[in-house]
Each structure stands twice: as structure tokens, then as C-alpha cells.
């Protein structure tokens, strides 16, 4: 097997841009799941990519993703712990809604409100893993990589999140 080519480093603009295009939204979402603040999330994702550029000579392309997530995690180390993070989400409008009865629509809206509140009551670990999977569409393997935990641990967090949400929302 031939030796892999020496990695191009991130200082090459085309590589840096490619990383931004593919990773920025996920990282923005990740920060948002953590702090619930859109403006802060946008600032931090920008900061993370600036730090990446400043260190571009030292970070090989394959490590750029973990570098960026590490920068994000570090930004939160000084945050006051365990503030209840209420995330204000935007609800995608379903195409079927118009066809349902007003009663049904009302019930669905109630449910969604309860759901958002219940999500805010999850532990940070559960919330982040759960939302990375549900909103950002990440599979367990990728979540495990980013959070540096095992896939089993991701399964556990997902199960716990669903159980907690179900209990809190009550009768559906």
C-alpha cells in the first residue's frame, strides 16, 4: 500500500473554505444546542473558524473537525453551570397541517410547546446528544466521535432523553 501523501494543511484557502462549507452549520447547531442563543452561536462559530485559521499550520485537515469542536467546548468552560437553557426553536410548517381540523392543529401546537419545555428540562448531556440526532440529523457514530464517548453512551443518552420527555409531556 502506498504511503499517504503528506497532508495539505488548512492554510490552503481552498481547504479552509471547504471545511467551512461542510462544518459550519453543524457547529453552529451544536453551540446553539448548548447555549440556546442564536447570536452567541454565530459569534462562537466565527471565533472557532478564526482560531482554526490562526493555527492552520499546526492542524492537519483530518483533525480540523475535532479542533473546531474543542474550541467550542472550551468557550463554555467559564459559563455559569446549569442555567436552564430554553431553546427557542422555529417550527417547520408541515404541509399536512392545512388539511387537519382546527382541533387537531391546536392539540399539535400544545404538544409542541410542551415538547420544547420538556427539552429544556433535559440534562445538558441528554439534550445535546438528542438534538444532534434529531435536528442536525447526525447518526450515533458521529455523535460519539464528536462528544468523545462510546456509541453505547450515546444510546443511553437518547433513551434517557426520550424517557424523560415522555414522562414530562404526560398524556399524549
Amino acid at each position: 500500500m502506498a504511503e499517504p501523501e503528506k497532508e495539505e494543511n488548512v492554510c490552503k484557502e481552498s481547504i479552509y473554505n471547504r471545511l467551512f462549507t461542510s462544518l459550519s452549520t453543524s457547529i453552529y447547531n451544536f453551540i446553539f444546542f448548548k447555549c440556546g442563543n442564536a447570536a452567541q452561536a454565530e459569534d462562537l462559530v466565527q471565533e472557532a473558524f478564526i482560531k482554526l485559521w490562526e493555527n492552520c499550520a499546526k492542524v492537519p485537515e483530518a483533525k480540523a473537525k475535532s479542533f473546531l469542536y474543542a474550541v467550542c467546548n472550551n468557550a463554555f468552560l467559564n459559563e455559569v453551570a446549569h442555567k436552564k437553557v430554553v431553546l427557542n426553536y422555529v417550527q417547520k410548517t408541515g404541509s399536512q397541517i392545512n388539511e387537519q381540523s382546527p382541533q387537531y392543529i391546536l392539540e399539535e401546537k400544545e404538544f409542541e410547546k410542551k415538547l420544547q419545555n420538556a427539552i429544556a428540562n433535559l440534562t445538558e448531556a441528554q439534550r445535546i446528544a438528542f438534538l444532534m440526532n434529531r435536528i442536525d440529523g447526525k447518526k450515533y457514530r458521529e455523535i460519539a466521535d464528536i462528544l468523545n464517548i462510546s456509541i453505547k453512551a450515546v444510546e443511553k443518552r437518547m433513551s434517557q432523553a426520550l424517557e424523560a420527555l415522555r414522562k414530562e409531556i404526560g398524556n399524549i
Partner: protein
Amino acid sequence: MSEKLLHKFLNSEITEAEMEILKASDVYREYLKIASHTSTMQTPSFNKERVRQNLSERTSIEKKKAIPLFNYRSLLKYAALIVLMLVGYFYLVTMDVSVTSQLAEKRTYTLPDKSEVTLNADSKITYNKNSWDDKRALTLRGEAFFKVMKGGKFDVETSLGTVRVMGTQFNVQTRDKHFHVSCYEGLVEVYFQNQSIQLTAGNSVIIENGKLIAEQTISTTKPGWMFDESTFENALLENVIEELERQYGVKVEINLTDKTKRFTGTFTHTNLEDALKTICVPLQLNYSIDDNRVIKIYEE
């Protein structure tokens, strides 16, 4: 079973058939509803383009920072650097060179005139590289075997006396107050206190506390320690154990009522237990080694 299917669902890997199984349970139907609804939630829009713009401004600024290669400030910096380098160079060149051997280490070193010195464990020589051509003089602490190239005088200075030769092979041992010089070839002159004595090949002299106490003939061509052995003749047990500590890098506690026991014999440098046995058995002593390699020697 359902738990596993749930995770398959969440990972978008579930089949239709498996879905039906999940939906059969009330609890899991609720999980499915929660999961699906959460998927329809979105994070607030991320202004990717604006961030990309900001980044390209920042990154192009960084690129534009050209480092001026030549201006007054950097000229001063370079000049200071060169001065420091020159000072450092002169300092190093006039400094003495030291060669040290650690516990349990033997080391051979070649001097600028191709003379060779082999250090026994825990020993040190110091000499000045620059003046070596004019005057071959070095300081020794511990024990070393010298192979001196023909040339002018060659001096080995120790705290207990000085050995002077003119092209020869000899061993010098200084441990505490014990000064032992052996000549294997050529002629060696030993200076101590206000006396001097000459040694020809095959002879050695022991000076303790400033007094000449023994002159012996030697039958070997090199000292025993260069063959990984230490030989003693009627030596104080204390000195024998000290050499053992040096060769193996261990600590030994001696608990004896009779502190004047003497040892005649040879111990190896290559096996600690064998060495301990050769010392202890003839003297009717016993030893123990604990987990930290601390050795105790006591009477049987």
C-alpha cells in the same frame, strides 16, 4: 428488542416491518411521536454567508501582514542576536569539559589527543579543551582507567594526589580517603602529600589517609572492573558494599555488630544476587531485597 429497534429508527436504519413492531407498543408509539416532532424543529437560521464574509476579511488581513525584512528596528535585533551568539561561543570555548558516569554505568571517552579514559561507575573527569594541546591535565573524582598516547606530560589530578605519566596505561582510583594507582604499562609517577613514588608496569600502590600502606604487583593487563568484576584484597566490608552500590545503583543497609569485617574476593557487575552471595557467604552473612530494591545485610 424494542429498545434496539428504537435506536435503529433514530439512526434512520429501520425497516417497514420493524416499524410495525415498534408501533404495536403504546410506549414506543409515544417515543416515535416525540422523536418525529423534534425532527421538525429547526435552529434559528444561521447566516452562513455573513460569517463567511467576516472570515475572509479576517483571513486576508492576516495574509497581508508582510514581515518587513529590513528596517532599523530589526537591524538592531539582528545585531543583538549576533553579539549574544559571539559571547556564548567564547564562553563555551573557554569552559571546561566534564565527562561523568552515573551509578551502574561505565563509560569510555576519547580526549582531544586520542588518549582514552574509561570511567568506572559514579566518576567524573574535567579538563579544558583549549589548553589540552599545551598541557594535558585533567581532574578526576572516582575511578578511571587511562590509555595515554605518547606525547608530553599527562596529569591526573585528584583530591588525594596527582598522577603523572608519559604515554602509558594505568588505573587511578579515588574513593573517600582511599587512593589506589595501578600501572599496566610504561611509567607512572604518583604525587601525594609531599612525596612521590614511581610505578613501573605491573605495580600498584595504595595510599590511605595520606599514607602509603601497600605496594602490590598486578598480574592482569587491565583492572578487573573493566571486565565487569570488582576484586578486593582484605578490604573493609564498607568499601566493598560501596562499590556494589555504585555498580548496581542500589542502596544497602548493613546491620552488623562487627564493623571491621574484611573481604577478599571478587564480585560480578552483571548479576546482583550473585554478587551479594559472593560477598555474604564467605563472611557468614545474610541479605534480603525488598520491593524498592533496598538491600539489608545482617548476621546469620
